[in-house]
């Protein structure tokens, strides 16, 4: 291991040096000097966010368990540290060895959010790695990326050598094995990338050519070398009980965003909300068994010393064996003063008594997501909950002694009218009225309902992928309209910056042409766009102007149903045919039942040989 002391003069000048030193409990890795392959896993946002990411823990654990990989970590430095690195002419380094990113065989990024793309480019630059894939030579690291945003890899394709599409536990180890082989035999970079394209679930952008129509849409997207697959199918893990789970993670000193044991209960979602990308890309729905989860939880608590476990999955109350799991965990978690939290309850199947049980140690906040203010619009987005269900759930929560609730909504949803916006205020008012419909003995301050409204961003691989985003002016008008409609101080109203959502929309549905803009943004020192204090809409607009890019083409244009979409070459299991069907149903405000009630023939079951939650269910495919 190298001498860390060379970084001491930098570390003494920054606000939170603990972000840049590693050395947390449980962070030991295989000796880099004895490893055949050195990988650095990068999270393109701050340490506190990155250390909260379960995906990195899983994947770096898989790599470090191979016996031949040594996988380290790196996070996006805060500007104070970036300035110190530049001032001292030192490269961005990995936390375990202190070596520059450029010294690794492979550098992997997880793409969790479109506004982190500038951080990816900045980390490459700070790590002394050539920014563009085409400029790298045999001695440079192979740059890999995966994660939810990799389902539309095109905007950042110029900077990445290999994308991993889908769940990475098996795939990444297969890639590591290939890279090790290629390194040992001195295989050229070009040939290594080609071989990676032959593995299942990997996309090598340099092996595909894109041509555009005069109007900027895609004319063709084809491989430029023989045997390179025209479509890349995502990888999944069929049996979650058998796949590696990181029970022994490093425990940060700094307080991170999710500073607790995270227990992944299932993957996928049975719901099918039409705006939700996670609900589509993680299909098919697969559960882990309570027995395995309980064992994982015990080991993770004993190892870490954490006093909280969070059950993390998309909609936790959909887990078929939730009661069994919780009944199995509570006896020991209560005895050990460990708090159990269920962060994503659905309104229609939320059980206050279950919540009472789990909050026997500590009482945490309660959040529901009606998403839209009227039944018509909730039907359009296929949220499948009724106003009555919302009110009943809130009443149960109030009866259980809670006096504060948070509700998530979206504005700018397809077909939305001013009546839908007013409906948000009306629903909030009904909830407040529900609280006062009975005599309650609360804290004396009465009820507090937080209404938090984000802006709709059309995302790839959703039935709304063709929809246009509202203009900023329209989104802001709707935000003000709602503000005027809220007549009570019992409702706290919060809304997102529409300008941030617009840039998010540009990159979400972007194509390769956006690589120019990312490079230009890097040259203008733009980064940390996910942070209000560093995001600048005006700078982005001027970057787009100077690069000849029209942001409205990506964000505010209704894409044609027959257009070639930038992400069409990726196969997530769920078919485009299904998406179109859902799109058309949305236009008639017709809902689709959840997968358990009735299979809608989305196509995802093909990824695990037809086995799915709908198992043998009737299909209308």
């Amino acid at each position, binding site marked *: 291991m190298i001498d*860390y002391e060379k970084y001491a003069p930098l*570390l*003494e000048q920054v606000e939170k*040096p*603990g972000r*840049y*030193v*590693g*050395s*947390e*409990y449980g962070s030991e890795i295989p000796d880099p000097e004895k490893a055949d392959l050195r990988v650095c896993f990068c999270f393109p946002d701050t340490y506190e966010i990155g250390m909260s990411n379960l995906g990195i823990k899983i994947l770096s654990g898989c790599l470090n368990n191979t016996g031949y990989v040594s996988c380290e970590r790196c996070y996006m430095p805060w500007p104070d540290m970036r300035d110190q690195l530049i001032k001292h002419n030192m490269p961005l380094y990995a936390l375990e060895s202190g070596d520059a990113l450029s010294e690794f065989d492979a550098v992997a990024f997880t793409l969790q959010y479109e506004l982190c793309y500038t951080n990816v480019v900045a980390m490459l630059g700070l790590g002394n790695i050539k920014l563009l894939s085409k400029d790298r030579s045999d001695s440079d690291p192979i740059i890999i990326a995966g994660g939810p945003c990799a389902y539309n890899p095109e905007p950042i394709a110029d900077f990445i050598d290999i994308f991993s599409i889908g769940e990475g536990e098996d795939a990444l180890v297969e890639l590591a094995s290939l890279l090790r082989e290629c390194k040992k035999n001195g295989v050229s970079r070009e040939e290594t990338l080609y071989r990676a394209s032959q593995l299942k679930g990997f996309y090598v952008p340099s092996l595909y050519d894109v041509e555009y129509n005069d109007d900027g849409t895609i004319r063709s997207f084809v491989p430029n070398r023989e045997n390179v697959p025209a479509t890349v199918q995502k990888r999944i893990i069929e049996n979650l009980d058998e796949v590696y789970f990181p029970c022994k993670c490093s*425990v940060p*000193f*700094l*307080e991170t965003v999710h500073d607790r044991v995270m227990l992944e209960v299932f993957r996928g979602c049975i719901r099918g909300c039409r705006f939700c990308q996670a609900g589509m890309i993680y299909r098919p729905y697969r559960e882990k068994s309570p027995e395995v989860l309980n064992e994982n939880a015990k080991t993770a*608590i*004993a*190892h*870490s*010393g*954490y*006093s909280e476990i969070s059950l993390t999955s998309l909609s936790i109350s959909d887990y078929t064996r939730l009661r069994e799991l919780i009944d199995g965990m509570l006896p020991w978690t209560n005895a*050990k*003063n460990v708090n159990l939290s269920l962060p994503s309850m659905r309104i229609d199947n939320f059980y206050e008594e279950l919540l009472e049980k789990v909050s026997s*140690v*500590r*009482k945490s906040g309660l959040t529901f997501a009606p998403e839209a203010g009227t039944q018509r619009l909730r039907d359009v987005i296929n949220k499948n909950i009724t106003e009555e269900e919302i009110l009943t759930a809130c009443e149960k929560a109030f009866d259980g002694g809670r006096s504060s609730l948070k509700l998530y909504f979206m504005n700018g949803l397809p077909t939305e009218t001013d009546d839908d916006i007013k409906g948000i205020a009306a629903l909030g008012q009904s909830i407040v009225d529900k609280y006062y419909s009975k005599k309650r003995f609360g804290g004396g301050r009465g009820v507090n309902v937080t209404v938090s409204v984000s802006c709709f961003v059309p995302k790839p691989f959703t039935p709304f992928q063709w929809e246009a985003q509202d203009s900023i002016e329209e989104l802001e008008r709707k935000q003000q309209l709602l503000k005027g409609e809220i007549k009570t101080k019992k409702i706290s109203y919060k809304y997102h910056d529409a300008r941030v959502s617009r840039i998010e929309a540009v990159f979400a549905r972007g194509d390769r042409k956006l690589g120019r803009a990312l490079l230009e943004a890097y040259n203008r020192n733009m980064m940390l766009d996910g942070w209000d204090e560093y995001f600048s809409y005006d700078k982005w607009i001027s970057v787009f102007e100077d690069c000849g890019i029209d942001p409205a083409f990506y964000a505010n244009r209704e894409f044609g149903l027959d257009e070639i979409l930038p992400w069409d070459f990726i196969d997530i299991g769920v078919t485009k045919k299904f998406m179109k069907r859902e799109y058309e149903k949305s236009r008639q405000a017709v809902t689709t039942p959840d997968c358990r009630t009735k299979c809608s023939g989305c196509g995802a079951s093909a990824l695990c040989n037809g086995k799915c939650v709908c198992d043998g269910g009737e299909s209308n495919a």
Partner: protein
Amino acid sequence: MPDIRVTFTKLDKLKYISHLDLQRAIHRMLVRSGLPIAYSEGFNPHPRLNIALPLSIYQEGERELFDFRVVNEVALDEIESRLKASVFPGMDVVKVELAVGKLATKHAIWRLETVTDIPLDEFKSAFESAMPVLKRSKAGEKTVDIQPMTELVSAESTENGIIARVKLNAAGNDYLNPSYVAAFFGERLKLVRTVRENIIF
């Protein structure tokens, strides 16, 4: 069972960790140890833990102290071996004993490793007369003479500076941070390592 007193180190990269972060790390270490630790009452129960004196970020400690409590009788050897198995990098358990009295600290011995061009004699004699330093507090800035709270134990020259041992006040309201000693010497002296060697009752 009376309180258990643990002597521990905060060294190496732990100097980049704040007192609050260290406290949380010790909480987790106690939980990991599997000992029947006593918890506080209230909405947010956490292990009962009392750390003698906080160390600022960038400071290290060789013989730091904390007290905690177990709810059942456990042999000291057992406690020691369990704690040693649960430590984190930079923290070592030096000693485990039954606590005698409260953690009422009076003085601390500090080792100040400095880079300076101040001659050793000049450095030593500085401790013999008034040492005015500008001190900032909530009430504003004021000049304080730190000499009555400061005692030079030893000083020796190194290649590019001086290593000094000083005994500073460490009683509740009268706590003197060694950064003020460095501040007294101003620009000519740079503190490169600050280690609390011992805490005195």
